[in-house]
């Protein structure tokens, strides 16, 4: 079946974490294309470009919280304010253990994952991500 490639957009300033997630997705072998943005500006530029050229939007946006310039919460609010982009599922993927951060997103039914300490958990998280992508 000639599947139209699904895109996951991962916004994180940490290159190690980008690499870890890319490896885990590759191991999952689901043929999902993972695209990265180092910060919110890059991400919004990319999303605007996709819409302008009638290219598919991501099936999931994975968002880190602690980032320079726009942080994860600010990016999330901007996405929510956009008629089209607000329909794209968002998932929080962070090293933050703060209860208030978790509560903030749980209140809005946004999946919240802390970054795993080992490969096994990473695989579990990636599977959850792929489930959201459908």
């Amino acid at each position, binding site marked *: 079946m000639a599947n139209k490639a699904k895109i996951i957009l991962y916004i994180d*300033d*940490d290159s190690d974490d980008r690499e870890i997630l890319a490896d885990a997705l590759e191991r999952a072998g689901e043929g999902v294309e993972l695209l990265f943005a180092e910060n919110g500006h890059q991400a919004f530029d990319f999303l605007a470009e996709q819409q302008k050229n009638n290219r598919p939007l991501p099936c999931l946006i994975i968002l880190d919280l*602690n980032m320079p310039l726009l942080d994860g919460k600010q990016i999330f609010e901007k996405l929510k304010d956009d008629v089209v982009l607000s329909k794209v599922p968002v998932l929080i993927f962070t090293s933050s253990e703060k209860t208030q951060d978790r509560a903030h997103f749980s209140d809005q039914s946004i999946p919240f994952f802390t970054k795993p300490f*080992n490969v096994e958990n990473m695989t579990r998280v990636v599977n959850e991500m792929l489930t959201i992508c459908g």
Partner: protein
Amino acid sequence: MKNVYAGLPCLFFSSTDDGVLVEVNDTLCHHLQYEYTELIGQKTEKIFPVSTRIFFQTHFFPLMKMQGYAEEIFVTLQAKDKTQLPVLLNATRQPGDSKTISLYAGIVVRNRKTFEDELLAAKKAAEKALQENTALLAAQRELQARTELLDQQMSLVNKQNEALRQYNHIVTHELQEPLRKLFFFTNILVENEDAESSNKNIQKLRSVAEQMRYTLTGLQQYVWLTETPVKRTPVNVNTLITSVINELQKEAPALTINCSAETLPQAEADSVQLHLLFREVLKNAVSFRKVDEAVTIFVTGSLLQRNKFRSVAGQFSLAPFLKIQIRDNGIGFDPAYQEQAFELFRRLHANSGRGVGLALCKLVAENHEGSIQIDSQPGEGTTVSMLLPFLLGDGEATANEAKTVAEKITN
């Protein structure tokens, strides 16, 4: 004679040196209840009570003889019914053909005591008011001093709260992040026997350990600046900036660093902390330079008055501050993020070091009751403006010197 003094609104009498009344006027007669004829030719003792007689002989008359007159002498006269009449007398002596006559004019001062009492009471009230005023002024000064102390303590509490917030961020994020990675890469290393992958992970572990070391060094400096007391001495800002530029030039000999600085007055600051501040600001100018362009730094200064109170609202006390601006020709950044620039471990550029520098600069400025601000535009360089206490010694000379310096550097 009698006609001349009759009807005068004052008492009048005259006497010879041996105390015989030569003339009296009707006002005197009226007050003392005598007929004119009852007094003329009589001794003055008739109208003087004992106390006045003694005073007259021992003081009044000797004074008259000596200087020829007496003024504002308070005596008591005695009426026919022995009542006493307080009188204020002026007297002169007139040499006559045969005898010298003393002339006395007086006014009745029955109310003098009342006036004196009132005057005394008024004086006491004034003294009391003065005392209260002095007490009030002292209380005001005390209040001012205590408000200043309160402001200092509130600023300290604010600073410590901010430090706690930063520590919390470091513990929950900046240290958690590398710790998680240490676990993650170690786990991969343990599970994976592929040599190539192992080498890669070992490199990762090294880089994470390095990141932790950076974080802890930054934290150490932050704690040091939060806790170490500020040792204020006169600091030559120009010399300090030049020495920092020389250090940076030595560290990056391939770069061209130009610096043009106005002559700045001395600041009153902790020289070690100020060195750190200038080093971080100038290091940023070098780090965020434009590619293929020499680093150019402009340093300017001005003097201004600023409210010393930082935490207590509604209180004002102006103190002189030196405003130093360091402008560079670097890549700049979006002004929307200028507040974030001062947060500990906050980086505005990818791979831009530890993100500690400006947070430390802010602490240094605040340690000196000063402030720091950053203005930038992408591609148009960055200007860091800081306010530091201006060195003001005692005396007018220094104030004038300050004025002259202010004029010089604002021109």
